[in-house]
């Protein structure tokens, strides 16, 4: 099996990164340091130029100029800069990577060499980030996420189009297909191409369906931020001290306000600018999520990398009908996700139609008519059971005696088990639905404390990789929960063995 390389990077040989890399990575810090020194020396330099000598004599620099060491100093600075440039150059020369049919491998470091390999079939996601400065140079940072904490392979920086091509090739190698794609000669006229790149939307039109399935409206985004918990705290922390000031005239109260406003304000602004150009689309190699206004980021999640999904609705969002979707993933990226939150938030805010379209992408096994109806009931249904205890809406809900533990949510608190997934519905004030694809579940447990035993109740937990979603459901009828536990335990085994999502295209015909 040989895969015809479409970029020059996937030929299994060692390659170097974008030549501007040292500048983009460390150069800014250097510029800043030089700037700070220049500002501090401004007075001395002005004095030297206009008055023929330094003004004050309490300075080390003054001593240096008076004793005629200026030449020596300049020489030292030059040597230092030369050494730094040389260091950057050598580290760039020594930083090489290669992509073979099995692994992505990076070697770096001058004195302390590191060598990092990521197996392609273990890839959890590929992220292309373009910080603002790097965009000006038409460079991009490619990050290959594999399972585990801080287990990412970073290639920063690459040429912008090269990064896009490389991502496509890595995903193709990882998908287990043996078909070489049509080689699309992605060459562009340098200047025009760069401008187009700077202005282009995040989704590569050749790869993704042109339309993002969700459009982020400015009004909705603002509304969701205003109605979120952080905005509430901002209000409390500003209005409170201001009221205190107006009553007591104590200026200390205002001092407390400023840091809070600055901190919260920058958080809100960052969240806003990051979410503004949010896009999400399904491609043949997984879900692609892009966001960012100045610094952009664009992540591809291959199929079968989603371990749990949570759709939730804070109370204040309910009148507007907005929802938020979070995921559990096996990898954790340095990069922050949409809305400046962890990249586990796949939909910062959206209405029911948006939620349905995103769920179609993240839960490709639940797209048939009954499953969609079930998901929708999981979101909005009030729940409840008929008098003989049977379910009304496809979910097995908590029995009436669970009222002791679940004061309000008793009727809605329930579970459903479809082919290959469990749905755990809870919360009547803070509505929440957790969906776990059982092929990804690690294990399942059932628990009962003393009070629950008296009430003949039990709690079921589905264990997944660590993340913001914790799939658990308490206050269930003990016997029903036991049956649920048994059937899910069997299904976890069955879906685990039949699952081939991690080599999602291996069934396609071989060339």
């Amino acid at each position, binding site marked *: 099996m040989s895969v015809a390389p479409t970029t020059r990077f996937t030929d299994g040989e060692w390659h170097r990164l974008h030549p501007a890399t040292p500048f983009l990575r460390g150069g800014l810090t250097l510029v800043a340091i030089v700037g700070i020194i220049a500002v501090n020396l401004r007075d001395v330099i002005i004095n030297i130029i206009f008055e023929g000598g330094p003004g004050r004599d309490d300075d080390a620099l003054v001593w240096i100029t008076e004793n005629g060491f200026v030449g020596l100093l300049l020489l030292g600075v030059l040597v230092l800069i030369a050494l730094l440039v040389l260091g950057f150059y050598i580290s760039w020369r020594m930083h090489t990577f290669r992509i073979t049919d099995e692994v992505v491998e990076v070697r770096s470091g001058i004195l302390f060499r590191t060598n990092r390999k990521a197996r392609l*079939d*273990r890839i959890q996601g590929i992220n292309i980030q373009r910080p603002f400065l790097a965009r000006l140079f038409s460079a991009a940072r490619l990050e290959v996420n594999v*399972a585990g904490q801080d287990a990412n392979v970073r290639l920063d920086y690459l040429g912008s189009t090269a990064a896009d091509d490389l991502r496509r090739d890595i995903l193709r190698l990882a998908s287990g297909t043996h078909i070489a794609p049509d080689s699309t000669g992605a060459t562009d006229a340098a200047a025009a191409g760069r401008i187009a790149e700077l202005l282009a939307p995040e989704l590569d039109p050749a790869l993704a369906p042109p339309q993002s399935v969700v459009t982020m409206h400015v009004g909705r985004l603002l509304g969701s931020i205003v109605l979120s918990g952080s905005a509430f705290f901002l209000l409390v922390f500003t209005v409170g001290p201001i009221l205190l000031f107006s009553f007591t005239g104590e200026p200390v109260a205002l001092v407390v306000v400023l840091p809070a406003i600055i901190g919260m304000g920058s958080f809100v602004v960052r969240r806003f600018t990051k979410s503004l150009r949010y896009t999400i689309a399904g491609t043949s190699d997984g879900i692609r999520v892009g966001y960012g206004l100045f610094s952009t980021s664009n992540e591809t999640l291959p199929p*079968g990398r989603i371990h749990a999904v949570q759709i939730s609705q804070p109370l204040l969002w309910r009148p507007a009908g907005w929802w938020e979707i979070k995921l559990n993933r*096996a990898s954790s990226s340095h990069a922050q996700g949409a809305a400046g939150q962890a990249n586990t938030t796949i939909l910062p805010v959206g209405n029911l139609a948006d939620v349905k379209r995103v769920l179609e992408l993240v839960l490709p096994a639940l797209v048939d008519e009954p499953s969609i109806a079930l998901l929708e009931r999981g979101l909005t249904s009030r729940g409840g059971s008929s008098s003989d205890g049977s379910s009304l809406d496809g979910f097995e809900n908590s029995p009436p005696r669970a009222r002791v533990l679940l004061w309000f949510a008793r009727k809605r608190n329930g579970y459903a088990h479809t082919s290959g997934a469990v749905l755990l519905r809870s919360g009547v004030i803070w509505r929440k639905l957790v969906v776990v694809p059982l*092929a*990804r579940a*690690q*294990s*399942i*447990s*059932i*628990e*009962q*404390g*003393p009070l629950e*035993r008296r009430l*003949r109740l*039990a709690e079921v*937990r589905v*264990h*997944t*990789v*660590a993340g913001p979603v914790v799939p658990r459901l308490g206050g269930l009828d*003990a016997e029903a*929960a*036991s049956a649920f*536990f*048994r059937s899910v*335990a069997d299904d*976890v*085994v069955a879906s*685990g*063995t039949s*699952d081939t*999502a*991690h080599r999602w295209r291996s069934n396609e015909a071989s060339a």
Partner: protein
Amino acid sequence: MSLEPIDTDATAWRRVSRKYIVVDVVSYTISGVILTGISVIPGLIFQWSFGWAIPVVVGLISLVVIALTPRRVRAIGYQLRDDDLLFRRGLAWQRFVAVPYGRMQLVDINRGPLARALNLSELRFVTAAASSTVVIPGITSEEAESLRDQLVSLAESRRAGL
């Protein structure tokens, strides 16, 4: 009603060694004595008239925990089913976990000083989810090693993606 989620074939459960009761009693006694000692301090510092009550309560709780140890150890059990490992423990707070062999990431065998003197080991079955880690304490070292080899070969034949 006690929780019996699995086909209630009591003989299918493999129990841990009775000798493990000694290990647990000793470790709970040590921690109980230390905690009782520490709980004396606030009463001495603040000169409360009821300061003596705190160590008494802590000591009593420790005694109850120690007294229940034999039952708690007898409640620990595991079953090697066709495709998954089933584990149970707990008296008041009962917990049953079913972990498919294919999800195994690694198996650990640990021995504390006291357990080693009694030829006991502790086997840890770890998956990608921290919360599903199964710890089987108090099995003989030979049993732990054969169980580990058995689990590894079972996991190998049922390997699943992450």
